[in-house]
């Protein structure tokens, strides 16, 4: 069973905190959200694949199965790990709350 911690879509203040400092440390309230987002099944989990060491990463989803390669999401390429964290946070926010994360 995945984490059941509810994410309140009106708490965009916490989303802003994440966007400002995606690598943390986070406030306790934000960490609860991040913990929920990082929990869950292996199959389909987002990971980053190194394209150029220390310079460029592409988003991917793992299979969760030994011997089965991950799926590259070629249109999601990042030149910083922080930007990758922001993008995934945004996707998960919408997935979990059903509300797109719109920060002006």
């Amino acid at each position: 069973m995945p984490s059941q911690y509810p994410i309140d879509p009106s708490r965009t203040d916490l989303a802003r905190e994440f966007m400002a400092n995606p690598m943390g440390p986070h406030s306790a309230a934000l960490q609860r959200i991040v913990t929920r987002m990082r929990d869950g099944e292996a199959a389909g989990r987002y990971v980053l694949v190194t394209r150029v060491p220390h310079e460029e990463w592409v988003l991917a989803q793992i299979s969760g199965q030994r011997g089965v390669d991950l799926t590259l999401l070629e249109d999601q390429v990042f030149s910083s790990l922080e930007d990758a964290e922001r993008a995934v946070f945004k996707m998960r926010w919408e997935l979990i709350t059903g509300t797109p994360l719109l920060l002006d």
Partner: protein
Amino acid sequence: MLDKKIAGYSDEISVAPGERIRFMVSCEPGVDRYQADIVRLISGDRQPDGPGYRDELLPTSVSGEYPGRTQETYYGSYAVVPDSPAFAALGSLSLQAAIFPTLPSLRRACLISKMDVDAGLGFALWTDPADGLVLQLGDGAGGQREFALGRPFVAREWYLVSATYDADSGEIRLRQELLDSYARDTSSGAASHSSDGSAAVGCDAPLLIAAASREEARGKPIGEMIFNGRIERPVVASRALEPGEIEALRSDSVPLALRSDVCAAWDFAQAIETDDIVDISPNRAHGTLINLPIRAVRGSNWTGDELSFRHAPDQYAAIHFVDDSLYDCEWDVDFELEVPADTPSGLYAARLTSGDQEDHITFIVRPPRDRATASLALLIPTASYMAYGNSRGGIEVGSELLANRLHVVSPEERYLNRHPEYGNSMYDDHNDGTGVCYSSRLRPLINIRPTHPWLWQLSADMHIVEWLEAQDIPFDVITDEDMHQDGVSLLERYACVMTCSHPEYYSTNMWDALHAFTQRGGRLMYMGGNGFYWRVAYRDDKPGAMEMRRTEDGSRSWASEPGEYYMAFTGEYGGLWWRAGRTPQSLVGNGFIAQGFDHSSYFRRTADSHDPRAAFIFEGIDDEIIGDFGLIGGGAAGLELDSASRAYGTPPHALTVATSEQHTDAYIRVNEDIGHMLLSIGGQDDPQVHADVVFFETPRGGAVFSTGSIGWSSALFHNHHDNNVSRMTRNVLDRFLDPAPFA
């Protein structure tokens, strides 16, 4: 994007000058040739802020170009019994065993086979996802005929299975009986068939248990269709036995009345410490296990009254076979090195390069076997390297909760995921969900490389090597295996022994040697965290293999089954050394207390640090804060943390000279130190979540200095070694190399 395509391994991990070491290499298509050189490793961390990779060529006859080729690896465990006169009388047939299938729905899997497929001779007994027990008999004309019971097995339940064939009547009986009792069970049952013509069950093929085979490689049958699960007391008989006779054979002796009929009855409770399977019938058709199936596991009759296989061997008459275990790749040798006589001791690698491809098959040149060539020995934790070798968790689980960030997959991880045949680490599960309790170094260990982007074990230990090289301090390099084999006499040649960053796995020999060294005036610098934690076992007749059990508690990726805490290799109680009465705190003053993998923190000096006994440690250091920098997580106090504890055995006179603070909530206290579960378990709330730097004197003028953190060594390089972590480490090393005794 780099796609890794080349990897190899060596037959030895530690060689002395004049000795030989062989290297085996496999290349994926596209790598037709590669350059091989022997290099001394100096530095590995390629992070932008790190020291980078550096090596030094050792001129040897190895240097040159070699053809790339793909080498096959045959993995998965099974037993082989050579053909023998024991099976010559087969006309009628009985096969039986107790079985505990762990993946019966995966595919058809073979329990026992002796089959010449092309000639259509022999027999095989299978589990089938839909049909349960299936008997296959040769038709004598190049084919096989099958007889199915028709009821699927339930996973992880014990069954007594039997199949008989009466050559006179042509009757075939199949039976599978659940040994536990469940209401509404539909998996037990029996079936009768008529062979409808003669079957040819005799053949000269070898007999396999837990596998079938069509062909040989490297002098033995290749196991295919490997059974996942446990098999207990398999029997082959040359008559169609009755149910009462089948039941009577579920024991540790063959009844006198059945001895003329039984071809072989294997008692896996015998010779558990070996690769041998023992036939207790008069025929003595013994066999050999391939690829380390798990022994010392509970059988169908385990009562729980005894917890060690040595106390009730008849309750441990099962072997757990898995389709993804591996002992030795057994690749053909690509090149070998006779280590030149004047080669200085050090960390070396066979460096393979081909275009953008590279691999470093890392090995150690120890000093000549009869002497030391420096006052300092760097102790390479090869047991821990083997435990972590080929860790698959990153790409299979991608756990973000450990690191509190997205997992970054390296080309090395994708390569490993493409190669399940390279086997697993002791942090992984087998395909059937069973924890991996054996490891081997006779295979490529993809993450045990000096440049691996996951800075852990060897790649992290390169920070220590780089620092020692920069300090221009002569040092010998020795390994866990050297210490296990040579004992304290190896260590006693040195004034000071320095560990690496995470010497977590220790055999009894290793623990004894290191402890004796500290008690006989030796000086020990424990340069990491979570050391001396798990107990492991080697087997003298199985070089390169290692066993461990994840028992009662500890930070575990899997847990051993109850009754399976004793190691098959030695009979020793496995798990945490603490549970065997030997705490890390009693050896080095601190022990594992917490871990986290997001931000590393720093240490603050304590009142103890101003004790005159500790003055030498802080010479030239005015800072109160130590190590608020580092290449892993940004601090010297990070990853896995050790703290001092009188209750756990820290010597009463030990000084805690620095203590870390302000760890994040991703740092959690170890479960073996948690009694009641409270809300305050994270680094921000739990004061136990901290590392202690500890110093204490030992008898006969010796001393121990323990850094308390895996992250410590990642701080050594900061500001080109001009920092307080480097200075403290150097201060301690200088004093530890000084023969003047400690009080």
